[in-house]
């Protein structure tokens, strides 16, 4: 009987796993010894990091999407039928259609989602770029903006930890190009006592903010937004006025994880090296879905996916464990409209970002197009 691998989720992590398994299990797929099924909720694949550029008119909406069927290896049985329950005791996934899928191995790649609704007033009073509708509205708001106070507000937890800084630097360049720099005051708020989670990045940011006159407030965890008074207030007791509020909303995991009672907040308790759900030997967890204390980012998902591909292929073909995940993360960081840098680290190596350069900005722009090769598992 064929071994059945079910991938729940059709984002970057799930797609890389599906494509990578097809490459490593070609013989088994051909002979019928293995079947791979993906359960997704859309026929479109969204390049999420491209949303950062949309408010500034640097990316067209059409450039953000590809057909998931074309991104995914044709040997993966792709079903647009979102999972509603994952029963890890009985190795069964139930979908919206009522159809059930029994599995030998399951890969949970259900991702994370923004939750501006968790903070009073945020949905009405703030803009964000973490989903398409929000990025469109932010683009319109920026077009109408003629100067005033901008607050860039960061909440925990959130994915893509460098995006808040990127949007701040890009906002500054955008306002300068529009001749609004001297009519605008940007204030950046951050939940912890420095400007970024990564200490070297935080240290690097201080003189950069000083250079551009960007103000900041640390230890700022949003309590509420008052859309009428146009103020934002923190749990720590600070209130800031704004004319334009750009927020990175708090995130949770997906509803199916909550509904299946697989982890508080929608984050699945996961062994940080094996990437197996705690207590399971056939439930892999990848990308934003894990509760591992590591960046929720496409890069993390990519390196985790590579590890899971090797282990799943090895388990299916040889019954052996292949290797552990070392915590590797690599992220480009846009430091304006024309410069960039990068940062990488793993569980044992601290990050040490280099000086920004135009060349690294070009690399990031190139990656924006090479992403589709990553998703296909070719890069």
């Amino acid at each position, binding site marked *: 009987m064929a071994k059945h691998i079910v991938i729940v989720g059709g984002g970057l992590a799930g797609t890389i796993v599906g494509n990578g398994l097809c490459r490593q299990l070609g013989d088994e797929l051909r002979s019928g010894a293995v079947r791979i099924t993906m359960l997704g909720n859309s026929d479109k694949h969204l390049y999420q990091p491209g949303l950062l550029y949309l408010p500034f008119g640097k990316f067209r909406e059409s450039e953000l999407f590809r057909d998931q069927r074309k991104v995914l290896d044709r040997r993966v049985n792709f079903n647009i039928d979102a999972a509603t329950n994952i029963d890890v005791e009985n190795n069964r996934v139930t979908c919206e259609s009522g159809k059930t899928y029994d599995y030998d191995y399951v890969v949970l790649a259900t991702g994370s989602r923004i939750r501006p609704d968790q903070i009073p007033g945020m949905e009405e009073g703030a803009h964000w770029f973490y989903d398409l509708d929000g990025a469109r509205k932010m683009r319109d708001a920026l077009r109408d903006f003629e100067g005033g106070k901008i607050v860039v507000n960061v909440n*925990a*937890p959130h994915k893509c930890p460098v995006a808040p800084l990127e949007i701040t630097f890009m906002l500054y360049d955008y306002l300068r190009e529009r001749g609004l720099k001297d009519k605008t005051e940007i204030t950046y708020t951050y939940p912890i006592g420095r400007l970024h989670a990564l200490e070297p990045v935080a240290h690097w940011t201080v003189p950069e903010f000083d250079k551009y006159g960007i103000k900041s407030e640390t*230890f700022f965890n949003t309590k509420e937004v008052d859309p009428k008074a146009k103020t934002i207030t923190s749990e*720590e007791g600070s209130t800031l006025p704004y004319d334009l509020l750009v927020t990175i909303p708090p995130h949770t995991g997906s509803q199916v994880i909550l509904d299946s009672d697989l982890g508080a*907040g929608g984050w699945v308790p996961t062994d940080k090296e094996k990437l197996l759900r705690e207590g399971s030997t056939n439930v892999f967890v990848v990308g934003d879905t894990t509760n591992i*204390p590591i960046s929720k980012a496409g890069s993390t998902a990519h390196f985790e996916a590579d590890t899971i591909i090797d282990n799943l292929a090895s388990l299916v073909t040889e019954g052996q464990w292949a290797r552990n995940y070392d915590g590797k993360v690599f992220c480009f960081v846009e430091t304006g409209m024309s410069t960039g840098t990068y940062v990488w*680290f793993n569980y044992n190596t601290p990050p040490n970002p280099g000086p920004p350069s135009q060349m690294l900005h070009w690399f990031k722009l190139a990656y924006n197009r090479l992403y589709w090769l990553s998703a296909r598992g070719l890069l």
Partner: protein
Amino acid sequence: MAQRTKIDARGAFCPGPLMELIAGLKLIEVGDEIEVWSSDKGSAKDIPEWVAKVGHEMVGVENCEGYDSIVIRKAK
């Protein structure tokens, strides 16, 4: 009886122990506790500083081999 949740943030460079604590506090009830394990030398100072500022309660800090165990009670 207060529930205690453990966050093993040893070796977590990003988002780091304090950010993990802030996220974790959103998932527990008032009166429950979180025990953070951190190998970041700054946590034993940063976490109590934030906890005092925001109005939660420090239960204690214990120096263990290669890491600190920091326990916080959610107060509001």
